[in-house]
């Protein structure tokens, strides 16, 4: 007891705004933000700066929706789905192919893609949710690979037909081409948003030459139309992401979400009070598949040219990194994790930033040359691999030292139930919680003996 009292006293000295979570968030976010802002300003011109920023924001929205759907399964219900990438693939492929090849109406194609995605989620869930969690993980990862193989190999109806020649594996989105083509509507929208002050804008930035070269570009895809397309995508994506956030929050706040958390903590207890655990599991898996299909549709619109090998399990692992850094079981955490990781990944894609993170160590290096000569090594430290190493290290550090993530899951407010208990019952309940959270055997035995009294 003495040590805990001392701990509470010392924690009182620290102001509320400077507790460790804020410090951690700042320690992680500050370097990444600094890196991102410098990368933003290292882009060569205003056009590149703008599309870099818009591209990052839109990517964040896409992966935020995906991370939300994963977090609903993993964080809220504790069902480790490692096959999320399959629904990305289904959403992207079906919507793009239906619109671009089979010439179905745009919105209808999206709705069909979402329905198929939800249906596949349902079909995958029905037999698998009763399996043990580790078998479920392997089954979903294998199912995802099978779906990817179908997209990769069905040349006749999953590949992109080319007018003169065999079909290609790379699917390109006709919708983007149409929207960015020069048309009266696009031109007017572009004028409305940008045209009026364009000359002044570029002159102010000393970039008149950019303006001239842009004006001389082929009419097929003008600066305005691309800008309008990107801005529209960003706005629509943001709206979709906010709606998904709202929807997931509604699930989490409702009694349904409480049941999900109870299943995560102890599914046998939930079964014993008369809930059908399997039913909850397949329902949530289907809902999550539906949401993830939406992320896939957005993926198809944003990247507009993709192929089946983009949908390997690595994408799922990335989503796991996002939600673990941000905090499991928590929509805001999913957003924080996605934002930070995506900013980091995008910042290190800029050429001028890459130059700063490149180092060549070989037999011809000055000091360590003989060592590398003996070891027959020619090390080339490059940002493409280094950023993934750093991301892996961050992930493991979070798992070790901050398993709850940047923004921990909010504790359920049980005060109105706890106030019904007597003081003795209450202290024994506290002791039981402490025993469960104890790190060492000694703490656990102390807490348990205290609770027994």
């Amino acid at each position: 007891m003495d040590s805990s009292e001392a701990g509470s006293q010392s924690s009182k000295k620290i102001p509320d705004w400077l507790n460790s979570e804020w410090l951690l968030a700042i320690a992680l976010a500050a370097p990444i933000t600094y890196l991102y802002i410098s990368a933003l300003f290292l882009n060569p011109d205003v056009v590149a700066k703008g599309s870099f920023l818009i591209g990052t924001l839109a990517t964040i929205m896409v992966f935020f929706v995906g991370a939300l759907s994963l977090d609903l399964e993993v964080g809220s219900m504790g069902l480790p789905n490692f096959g999320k990438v399959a629904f990305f693939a289904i959403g992207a492929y079906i919507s793009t192919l239906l619109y671009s090849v089979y010439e179905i109406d745009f919105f209808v194609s999206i709705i069909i893609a979402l329905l198929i995605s939800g249906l596949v989620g349902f079909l995958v869930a029905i037999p698998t949710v009763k399996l043990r969690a580790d078998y479920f993980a392997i089954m979903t990862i294998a199912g995802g690979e099978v779906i990817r193989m179908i997209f990769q190999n069905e040349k006749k109806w999953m590949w992109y037909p080319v007018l003169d020649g065999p079909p290609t594996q790379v699917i390109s989105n006709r919708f983007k081409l149409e929207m960015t083509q020069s048309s009266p509507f696009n031109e007017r929208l572009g004028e409305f948003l940008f045209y009026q002050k364009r000359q002044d804008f570029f002159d102010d930035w000393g970039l008149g030459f950019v303006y001239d070269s842009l004006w001389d570009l082929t009419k097929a895809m003008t600066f305005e139309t691309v800008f309008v397309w990107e801005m529209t995508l960003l706005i629509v994506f943001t709206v979709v992401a906010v709606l998904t956030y709202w929807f997931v929050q509604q699930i989490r706040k409702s009694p349904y979400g409480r049941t999900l958390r109870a299943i995560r903590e102890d599914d046998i207890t939930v079964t014993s009070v008369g809930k059908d655990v399997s039913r909850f599991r397949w329902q949530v898996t289907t809902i999550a598949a539906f949401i993830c299909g939406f992320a896939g549709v957005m993926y198809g619109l944003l990247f507009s040219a993709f192929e089946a090998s983009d949908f390997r399990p690595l994408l799922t692992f990335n989503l796991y990194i996002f939600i673990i850094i941000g905090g499991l079981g928590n929509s805001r955490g999913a957003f924080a994790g996605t934002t930070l990781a995506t900013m980091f990944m995008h910042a290190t894609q800029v050429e001028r930033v890459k130059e700063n993170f490149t180092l060549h160590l070989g037999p011809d290096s000055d000091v360590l040359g003989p060592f590398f000569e003996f070891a027959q090594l020619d090390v080339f430290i490059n940002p493409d691999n280094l950023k993934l190493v750093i991301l892996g290290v961050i992930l493991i550090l979070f798992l070790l030292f901050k398993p709850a993530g940047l923004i921990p899951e909010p504790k359920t407010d049980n005060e109105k139930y706890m106030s019904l208990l007597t003081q003795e019952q209450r202290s024994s309940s506290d002791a039981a919680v402490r025993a469960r959270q104890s790190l060492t055997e000694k703490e656990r035995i102390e807490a348990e003996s205290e609770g027994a009294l």
Partner: protein
Amino acid sequence: MTLLNVNLLQHVTLALIYAAMLIMLTIGLNMVYSVLKFSNFAHAEYVTLGMFMSWWSLQIFTNALPSDNSHFINNLLLQAMFAFVVVGLFGILGEILVYDRLRFIRASPRSFTVASIGIGLIARNFLAMVFGSLPAPNKSICADCTSLSSLPGWLPKVLRKDIYHIKIIPREISDMLGFELIGQDIFITGFELYIILMSIIMVFTVDYIFRHTKFGIAMRATSDSLELAQVSGVNTKRVIFYTWFLAAGLTGFGAAFVRANQPRFSNFDGYYMLLPIFAVVILGGVGSFRGGIVAAFILAYARQFTVIIFTEFQWTGDRGYITDLFKFPFESMLEDWLGFTITFSPAYADGIGFVILIIVLLVRPQGIFGSVEATRARV
């Protein structure tokens, strides 16, 4: 004229080699899975690391040793031993830095799995930085270094041929019959022979360790129940360390032979093997070596026969083979039923294993030889 247009004997041999390779690479995963109770996705990186380490030791030793043209020292066995030690130490490093601490804070098994994904990410990209991300061997520094391993020079000459040509059915029989029955000869490279031999040796060694040594018994006790093993006086911490070393090391040892057999390799090779390896362990049943062997054979033969059958579907026109008799009716039947044709691509061969896995798990969730455990959530 032939009955089939494939050399069936050769295909059966290829499947045998693939099965032997899977067995070599899955023994370690099975050990970790049964003792530590989580799916270690970093296992794929042990394969990659073993490949790179065997190649690297070839470079170092060729550079440092005096000329060793008869390959008495610098041979594949030494390289495989080097890979065994380095990869084993890497396994222990993961335990010291990550898993031990995770166990201390009583993290959920899912945290272990995600941590292993992180370790895999780090290892894969670190290797890409050190050895180059293009398919190695492409970065030999010294001019006279080779990327081709050699078999030990002290072995009898029969055991270190580059390629073995085995005639199973003599040509006279097919001449007499007027057609080839199921093919007549088999080609195996020397390294493939060693993959088969080493997998057999490894299986029997590990089986001996598990049954007849004190360490093996301690390991099985730990895998049954950590607390009970501790009560019985087993130093579980040491057992876990040895498990990591042996599991990772054996995988690296096998990976050295796999690398020697293929012309080039990259830092993604192990990652692409991840799912077949896991499919073997899960299909056979976690913790069962016998099940792992059976599952490896099932998956390997399913894969190889899928390749044979689906390659048949790539041909069009009547070629006078027996397979044409059932191929065309089947295709037209599918067209009638579905309204479109399915591309029977041989690339589906890797997916067939997963389909088998899914079907078997639905019927028998603990795997073929696995035992039902009373535990709930893992991962």
